[in-house]
């Protein structure tokens, strides 16, 4: 059989094994439960609040927007983090030492992260559905929109996370991504509509995929009339598709170049330096 195909299939299996390991590791589960619990608490506290200019629950709007935060957080932050950690502990060098190992490694990573995103979105949505009212879940169109926004969201964020992961030297530095993501959350209408923000911040937010992910999610699951609370009073599906696609194309074009560059360097003097550090730990 074709060796690359063998590696892709091994990568699919690898992603599934890694995903299983993630959901059976207590530490990972606790951080997921705490994060999701935090979001759900904020949503419950805002159940009675209203979206400005409407009679609609702010909590319900937040639940839907938080789904996009799941995608952004896992796709960019976790992807970058895993890549940096795998470089530090030698996983990446191991992949390099095996025929087509990098193919398998990357397929595995993408599968693992995607599975984490989908399960995080599903769990958040399911738990949230019991806590809020007004979700538009009875139309097939809702799920269709959710599906394409989610898929485009994966494509826009996971390669971006890979690019960032290839740039950062260690796991401490990736905390910068988290800070940036926090700042973007504030200006992307995740917890509060952007209509009250200064124009500059509103437009800055709309450069990044997080805003459009949130808008897309809201368009899928909120009542049609809620479009009135958005910029331009519309769900702007075409723009959502355009911006997320642009980020996807940029990420997919850049990621292989950056990853190849990173893999090529994986044998530099940093390996010895990391070994020294590890020896100190042993």
């Amino acid at each position, binding site marked *: *059989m074709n060796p690359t195909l063998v590696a892709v299939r091994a990568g699919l299996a690898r992603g599934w094994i890694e995903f299983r390991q993630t959901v059976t590791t207590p530490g990972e589960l606790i951080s997921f439960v705490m994060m999701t619990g935090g979001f759900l608490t904020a949503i419950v506290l805002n159940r009675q609040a209203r979206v400005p200019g409407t009679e609609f629950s702010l909590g319900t709007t937040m639940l839907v927007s938080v789904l996009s935060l799941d995608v952004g957080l896992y796709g960019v932050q976790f992807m970058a983090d895993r890549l940096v950690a795998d470089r530090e*502990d030698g*996983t990446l060098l191991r992949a390099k030492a*095996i025929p087509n190992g990098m193919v398998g490694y990357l397929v595995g990573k993408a599968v693992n992260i995607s599975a984490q995103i989908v399960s995080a979105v599903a769990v958040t949505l399911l738990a949230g559905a019991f806590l809020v009212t007004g979700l538009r879940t009875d139309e097939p169109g809702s799920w269709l929109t959710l599906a394409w926004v989610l898929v485009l969201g994966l494509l826009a964020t996971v390669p971006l996370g890979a690019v960032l992961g290839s740039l950062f030297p260690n796991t401490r530095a990736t905390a910068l991504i988290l800070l940036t993501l926090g700042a973007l959350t504030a200006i992307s209408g995740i917890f509060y509509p952007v209509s009250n923000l200064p124009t500059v911040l509103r437009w800055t937010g709309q450069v990044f995929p997080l805003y459009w992910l949130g808008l897309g999610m809201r368009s899928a699951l909120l009542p049609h009339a809620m479009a009135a609370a958005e910029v331009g009073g519309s769900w702007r599906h075409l723009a959502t598709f355009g911006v997320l696609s642009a980020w996807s194309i940029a990420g997919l074009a850049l990621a292989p170049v950056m990853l190849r560059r990173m893999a090529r360097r994986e044998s530099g003097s940093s*390996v010895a330096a990391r070994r020294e550090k590890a020896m100190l730990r*042993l």
Partner: protein
Amino acid sequence: MDCVLDVCDLRMRYGKVDVLTGVSFTARRGEVLVLLGPNGAGKTTTIEVLEGFRLRSAGRVSVLGSDPAHGGEAWRARIGVVLQSWRDHGRWQVRELLAHLGRYYAPYSTPGLTRPWDVDDLLETVGLTEQAGKRARHLSGGQRRRLDVAIGIVGRPELLFLDEPTAGFDPEARGEFHDLVHRLSDLEEVTILLTTHDLDEAERLADRILILAGGTIIADGSADELSRAASTRSEVRWSRDGQRFVHAAEDATAFVRDLFRQYGESVQDLEVRRASLEETYMAMVREAEAGAARRPLGVVT
């Protein structure tokens, strides 16, 4: 093809620092080469160039008939690498990891060689059968290293690189590892290049020892050949009339002949000892570090 490794005038420069100033050696199929040298002499650099993980500055290198800088995946499949790395795949179970990594080698089987190694067989071979269900991060240091070796040979390599494979082994584990190396080279005809700081180990495993110092190979030969080439001095001990004597002789045979001619039967407890590998090694490295670059000693095959 008999010549597995052919390195000619390999040079490596980082910025303005020359780490390798002209390394040359060859290895035949099934040979075990041990690369010795002080820390920072460039052992890891040399191995990484041969593994294709590092681009050389200059020189000609052929590994299994290919330039490692453009090896390709089919070439990669014929090579086993045991890195000095240590804690990757910590969450994976031993058997799961070996089975997974073996999959990548399956398309590279040849009529005479089925890849990968059967996992149960491999676990048995490296002595990890009882740990098959354990997560890698829960293994002891020696077990973890054996897993590293297992990963290195899961694809049934024709050429195996081992960078300080026995660091952290207890004497028993070390002995078992030595048996494994002998088995791989004798039965499977695997060519092996390993680095170590343990001179005893070098003497036990090596068909040939290479000493790397000052950026070049200063000695290339069997342990025996090296001590003969390096130290012309041997230690001669004897006693006469209850008194003990020690003398370092350039030509021990001539010295002993003289000794007998002079004192005849009163010479007792005679011992002539050629320098050990450790002494040979220390002397060669000291000389190389003190002096300028010099031509390789010993027998170049």
